[in-house]
Every structure is written in structure tokens, then in C-alpha cells.
């Protein structure tokens, strides 16, 4: 008897992600994890999982799966993906109990391009360096460090989902999507001219370039003026850092970014806003607003609180 979910088809870049690896950056291992960790946590909450349970992350193009075990409880949450079960449209952001042979079809997204299929009990995967997050560039995590492939079978920890009430996230509880992203200036803002900093903070100054992925979002638009030769001795970086290479066009580091970089960093997108940025497809217009560290940490605290209260917000379905 089969134990899991069969991948009938999937878009390249469909991966298994959790909240990422902590503790190995000093050896060059990036945190990785979900591009939109908030959506991942919501999906997990809907099926009653611990929030950091690994789930399937999809980008733009969806995927199809067949339930190959007795029964399973899943929830899809994230961007504007359309979900169908056995060809019939089904609600997203809602837990669903499915039975053997059922087909899960996730269509294409347009405006918000990351979604997570959480599975009650989680996937049966051995963590690498403390996490199941897939970092394909380094061949780490997931199944053999690689993205999912058509025909692959994913083993699950629970192959029988108990009958119980299902839950849904009320529309009013959806985080409000933003186009303007808050940043804390620095750590190398002093390597830019006053004009350079103003260029970053102008409204609607940039667009996300097509050459963007989970390592970094390249921006096109006005060039940012810097002081000196535009190189620094490599120092540590985190997702959200806005590096400005010699071209003057910023590059925002995302979940799979290297642990160190050699370009000056004008500012860092705050952790509360980065998941929303990760939802935007290439071509989207973005702008930035500077906030203080205190404001950034207050926003983070509020988001943490919102997540902690999330189980209470869910609606129990009849």
C-alpha cells in the first residue's frame, strides 16, 4: 500500500520548505525556508500542524497531485492560485479531507505567486542540518536536495486523516498585500550619496526584473549613486538586504541568498514585509519607505502576536 502523495505534474522550482535552518550560517549554509513564511504558517495552522512543519511550496505555475494513501487532510494557502479537487473547484485557505485516488489540481497564479500545500502530520522526510527546507543550489534538504519532479511519490507521516471539523481562514484575517516595503537603512548607507538614498526611497522607482528568483530579486529603474568603487570586503548578509552592485541597480536578497556578499547594502527590508515582497511576480512595481529600528521591531512583534492568535481566528466549518 502506498504511503503518500504522488506528484502528477509540477512546475520547476516546486520544493519542500519549512521555516529554514538555523545555526549553520557560520559554515556558509543559508537559512533557506519558505519565501512567504507567513503563508506557510497559515497553511499549517489550517490542518492543525505545528507552524514550522514542512509543506510543498509552489511558484506561479501550480502542480497536480494524487492521493495515494488511505486519506489525507490538506490546506492550500498563499497567492491567487485556483484549487480543484477531481476537477471541481474547491476552497483555498480551508482544510480538506481527501481520500485515495482524489486528484489535487493547483492552477497558475497571476498577482501573488507563492502558495503552500500543508499536509496534516507532515511529510516523512529526514531533516538535513536541522531542517527539511530545500536549498537546490547546495543540494540540501527536501528529498535528495532537489526540487519535486513529475512521478515522484512523497511519503507522509499520517496516511489516514481522522474525521473531524474542517477550518477556514476568514477573508477579513488575510494580511493586506503591500507594494510599498518598509526598510531600515544600513548597514552601509554611508557608502551612498544623499541622492542615492533618495533614489531608493522615491515612490514607484523600481520594478522587479524577470531575472529574479529565491536567491535574489533584481530591480530595474533608476540607478543608485554610491561613493567609492562599490565593493566591500565580503561581510555577512541576511534575506532582505538591498545590495547595490556597480550597475547601481539594487538586488534584494531573498530566502536562498548566500551567507556573505561583497556589495554595499544600502538598506534592509524589514522581516514583516519581506514575505509580501516574495509574493510579487517579475514586472511588479515596488517602492520603499524608511522606518526606524523600533518601528521595524514593533511591526515584527505585532505580526508574531497575530500569528499566535491565528488558531482562534479560524472559522469552524459545519
Amino acid at each position, binding site marked *: 500500500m502506498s504511503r503518500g502523495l504522488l506528484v502528477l505534474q509540477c512546475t520547476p522550482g516546486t520544493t519542500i520548505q519549512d521555516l529554514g535552518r538555523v545555526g549553520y550560517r557560520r559554515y556558509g549554509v543559508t537559512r533557506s525556508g519558505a519565501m512567504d513564511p507567513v503563508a506557510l504558517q497559515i497553511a499549517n495552522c489550517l490542518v492543525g500542524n505545528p507552524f514550522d512543519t514542512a509543506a510543498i511550496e509552489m511558484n506561479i505555475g501550480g502542480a497536480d497531485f494524487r492521493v495515494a494513501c488511505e486519506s489525507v487532510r490538506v490546506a492550500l494557502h498563499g497567492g491567487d492560485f485556483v484549487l480543484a479537487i477531481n476537477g471541481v473547484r474547491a476552497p483555498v485557505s480551508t482544510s480538506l479531507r481527501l481520500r485515495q485516488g482524489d486528484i489535487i489540481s493547483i492552477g497558475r497564479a497571476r498577482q501573488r505567486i507563492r502558495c503552500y500545500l500543508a499536509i496534516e502530520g507532515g511529510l516523512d522526510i529526514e531533516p538535513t542540518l536541522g531542517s527539511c527546507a530545500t536549498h537546490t543550489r547546495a*543540494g540540501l534538504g527536501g528529498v535528495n536536495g532537489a526540487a519535486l519532479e513529475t512521478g515522484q511519490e512523497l511519503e507522509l507521516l499520517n496516511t489516514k486523516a481522522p474525521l473531524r471539523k474542517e477550518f477556514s481562514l476568514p477573508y477579513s484575517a488575510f494580511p493586506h498585500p503591500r507594494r510599498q516595503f518598509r526598510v*531600515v537603512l*544600513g548597514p552601509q548607507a554611508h557608502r551612498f550619496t544623499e541622492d542615492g538614498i533618495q533614489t531608493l526611497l522615491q515612490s514607484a522607482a523600481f520594478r522587479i526584473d524577470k531575472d529574479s528568483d529565491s536567491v535574489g530579486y533584481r530591480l530595474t529603474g533608476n540607478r543608485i549613486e554610491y561613493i567609492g568603487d562599490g565593493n566591500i570586503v*565580503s561581510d555577512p548578509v541576511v534575506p532582505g538586504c538591498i545590495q547595490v552592485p556597480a550597475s547601481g541597480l539594487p538586488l534584494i536578497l531573498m530566502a536562498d541568498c548566500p551567507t556573505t556578499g561583497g556589495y554595499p547594502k544600502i538598506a534592509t527590508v524589514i522581516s514583516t514585509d519581506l514575505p509580501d515582497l516574495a509574493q510579487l511576480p517579475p514586472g511588479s512595481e515596488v517602492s520603499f519607505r524608511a522606518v526606524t529600528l523600533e518601528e521595524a521591531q514593533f511591526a515584527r512583534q505585532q505580526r*508574531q502576536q497575530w500569528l499566535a492568535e491565528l488558531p482562534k481566528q479560524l472559522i469552524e466549518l459545519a
Partner: protein
Amino acid sequence: MSEAHRYAQICFSAVGDCAMLVELGAGIDEALNESVLQLETQILKLSIRGIEETTPAYNALMLHYNPDVISFATLQETVSAIDLNHVTDTRERFLWRVPVCYGGEFGEDLDSVANYHHLTSDEVIARHCAPRYRVYMIGFAPGFTYLGGLDKHLHTPRRENPRLQTPAGSISIGGMQALIAGVSMPSGWQLLGQTPIATYQPDRDPHFLIAPGDAVEFHAIRPDEFSDMQQAAQRGDWVAERSALTGEPS
């Protein structure tokens, strides 16, 4: 880049809301890098609540912290109170003898690097094997080991066209730096050879062999030795010889 120097005062900056960059100076300098590692050792020894992990680099240390547990100001105060002039070095340090198969398919840029410097390929190999390198940083990608101490006659600009893929174990040089690559990655550095050792191996204990502050020496091996050693490394053997390093690496 400007001359390496130490700042009169440690510079603390916020990197977003969950990280602090602690900069001790600018440029690439052994004593400066040593101070970064000493500072990290002292911070780890203090087991400060709220610090999730630390990333040391050439002249700066990043502290990843949870602002719900410790504030930026408290963290800055705690780190400022550490007196680097009165610490005893408790880090275990090792000298690693790393085998390298040079040239040909193992190091596609060996001949062009030799031409660039008007040297023979054998002279490049000899100069690359001569120094004892200091490990300044493990960064960028898993097990990427950044070395200082490259012979100044081998300083070579990076390639105009970066390669989209270079193998794990690539031994390369870029500018004044030398590198051992832990995993396969795109790279614009000049490839001199390849080592069969795995600086990172997920199925081995320990996962990572070399640490910042260690020393590395290279020696040349033949292609047939390379394949035997690579198989051994894949089984989880270290392959590289390790010995204790006493005192400061030179």
C-alpha cells in the same frame, strides 16, 4: 579597496530587525580577522539569551538575534563590555593538508593563469602549494573556504565571463584570495584544480571539516589518486590530513 585598518571604536549597525553587524575594521588583515574570531568566541562563551547564531567574516561579525528576547541596545552594551585585550584563545585550531589535482579538466584556467603571469604551469602549482594559508571565512555557500596568503605573483583578476557551474571541490583564485569550494556553484574565479576532499558532507560527522582561524596547505596529486580519494571522501572519510595548530597561524 582601501588599506586594511582597525576602527578606533567597534561599529554596530542594524541589518533589518533581527541582525546586528559588528564591524571591527576594514580590509583584509590577519590580526583584524583574529579579533573577529576572538569576539565571537567570547560572545558564544557568554551564552547571551536571544542570540540565535553568529556569522564571522573577514572584519565583521553578524549576530542574528531575537528582538523579543534581547534589544539592540542591550546587545550592543553586552558586546561593548567584552575586553578583547584580555582574552585567552580557547578555539581549537587545525592545520589541514589538502590534496589538489591541478590543471586539465580539473583546473581549466591553470594555463591561462600561467600565461597571464609569464610563468609555467608547474611554477603556478609550486607557488600555489608553497604558502600556509589562513582560513579567514567560511561563507557564501556551504563549506566555501576563503583563504588569505596567496603568493602575490599569483594575484589574478576574476574571469570576465563567470562560469555558470563549477564543481564541488574547485580550487580557485580571485584577486588576492584563494578558495576551496564546498559545493557546485556558479563562479567567476580562476580554476587551478580540484580537491577530492569534501569540506561539507551531509552524511559525515562532522558535516564541516575546516573552520575560520584554521590553516590550509595544498599539495599536488595525480588524477588516479584523485579518483580513489574522491570515492573515500564520498564514503565519509576526511581524506585531508589534520594536525593541531599551536599558536597563531603565520
